[in-house]
């Protein structure tokens, strides 16, 4: 577990363009230590979506390396990248993070299903209960349908899901945009605390610069992307 987190995130010489050259993204260098928390400023149209898809391994770049926990995911096949994502990354979106008709428990368990995690079910249950308690959710919610929860509760469940595999990298795409100001800060604090416990590197992407203070480093995606031009 410690082994895989020894490198954090390292992106170098990255170059990606859509077929037909509609949009291109280039990143010379981005390096984060394990457990480090970074804020990425990404207004809409800045190439944020492409950046997220590349880092998570959904898209493959034409050139460059993306190392996560010491593994260059660009060297992996599409299927292996998907499995790597299931095993070593957590992803949380703005909203509607959960599959509405599954239980909270099933939603949190999903990454373990796709990483074919061999951990016994009882151990998984213990881990899920710990996470849920840590995120200040009531255990009685576990077997409710996900869409019966409030938005704030749903975002915390989504956080639990993105951390259940103790990921090397947690990718957060404006997870607080549907929350009010107070809940926003509370949520980010909770996220940072919980991520620190599994020594996960955090990439928090947002267009809201006021959140920047919660993070140790911050980048502007437009600067990272160099001459990248939004379509």
């Amino acid at each position: 577990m410690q082994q895989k987190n020894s490198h954090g995130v390292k992106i170098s010489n990255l170059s990606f363009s859509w077929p037909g050259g509609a949009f291109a993204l280039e990143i010379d260098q981005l390096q984060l230590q394990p457990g480090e928390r970074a804020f990425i400023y990404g207004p809409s149209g800045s190439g944020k979506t492409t950046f997220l898809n590349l880092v998570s391994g959904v898209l493959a770049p034409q050139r460059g390396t993306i190392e996560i926990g010491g593994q260059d995911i660009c060297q992996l096949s599409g299927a292996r990248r998907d499995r790597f994502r299931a095993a070593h990354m957590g992803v949380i979106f703005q909203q509607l993070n959960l599959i509405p008709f599954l239980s909270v428990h099933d939603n949190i368990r999903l990454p373990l299903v796709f990483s074919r995690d061999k951990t016994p079910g009882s151990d998984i249950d213990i881990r899920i209960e710990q996470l849920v308690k840590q995120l200040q959710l009531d255990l009685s919610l576990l077997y409710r349908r996900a869409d019966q929860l409030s938005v704030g509760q749903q975002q915390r469940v989504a956080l639990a899901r993105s951390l259940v595999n103790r990921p090397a990298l947690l990718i957060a795409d404006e997870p607080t945009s549907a929350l009010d100001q107070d809940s926003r800060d509370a949520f980010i604090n909770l996220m940072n605390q919980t991520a620190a416990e599994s020594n996960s590197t955090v990439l928090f992407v947002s267009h809201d610069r006021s959140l920047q203070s919660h993070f140790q480093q911050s980048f502007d995606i437009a600067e990272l992307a160099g001459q990248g031009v939004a379509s």
Partner: protein
Amino acid sequence: MMTRLALRSLANRRVTALLTLLSLTISILLLLGVDHLRQQARDNFAQAVSGTDLIVGARTGPVNLLLYSVFHIGNPNNNISWDSWQQLENSRDVAWAIPISLGDSHAGFRVIGTSTAMFEHFRYSRERALEFSQGEAFDDLYQVVLGARVAEALSYQPGDEIVISHGTGAVSFADHDDKPFTVTGILRPTGTPMDKSLLTSLESIEAIHIGWQQGSLVPGLGASAEATRQMDLQPQSITAGFIGLNSRMATFGVQRMINDYPGEALSAILPGVALSELWSTLGNFENLLRILSMLVLLAALMGMATMLLASLNERRRELAILRAVGARPWYLLLLIQLEALMISLAAFLLGWLLLNASIQILEPWLVNRWGVFIEPLGAQAGLLGKLGLFLGSALLAGLLPALAAYRKSLADGLVVKT
């Protein structure tokens, strides 16, 4: 997990999923039903007569003669005179001859005037003779033997008295109630039209018609049951007859002889040849039914594809979430296919169950009204093949939405832009 995802997802869209299931179920019911009925009708017809070399009747088409003589469907347009029949019966090549005389009924079941040769020589299915489950054959006037279905439907026992009606309608206004018949025996079930027939002697048929003209009893001409016994009860004519020959080799010769009979216009047919002529007549109709039921199935499958395809728009988030937690695009394709498979499998089982249930419910009516014996569908040999073929077409139909899901998930990645 994939099964749970597919089931929960379908349950989440239960109204559209159920409607799709229903339309697929109906089309399966139709497809299996048409095929089963066709098969059963063929079996029924093929079993009804066996061992008879020729069927003789007044000059008519082979199919028509077969239908009215064996299956009691339709009515003869003419009779055979008793003299001609006698001559035929006594001819050198003929081993046995069974006369039949139709035209009367009891509670909607046909009464057949015949001779005891019927019990001796008639064969059905694979050379099976008529057997009695109770009692014995008639051997006197005003005695009758019942087919199994008749006895069952009307709860008759040997010794019961029944009244025969003139004509063959289910409701008759002219009863031969002055000459009641006694039941002497009940036949074992045969699975042929014999089950819903009543057998009596030609003389009895003649006796109850003494004094009848144009379908009613002429006042003053009738005679009492006892007085009738003294009269000459030799019939003037019969409706048709079954003939067995001494040698199969003679079949065509005798057939030609009958067809060229100078005394009156007669027809002789080979039951097997007439049956295959019937099939080729019905074949087009059967094919039409099959094509129609396949078109209905096609429409239902397209409905399912449409349902799955339409659901993809509201499920884009779901697909993106699955991608985010590590599902491969292939997984999403298979997930949609699994949903198609589940709906189709449920529809097939449901359609099969419904078909069996409706056969159970409709069977008595089918037998009584149409004389068709339909067995339950059961787990017949071809069923698995049909299931496989159906599931295959369902997967083919599901491929369209499944590929769409695959492509959408690749295009959307993790972030769904709406």
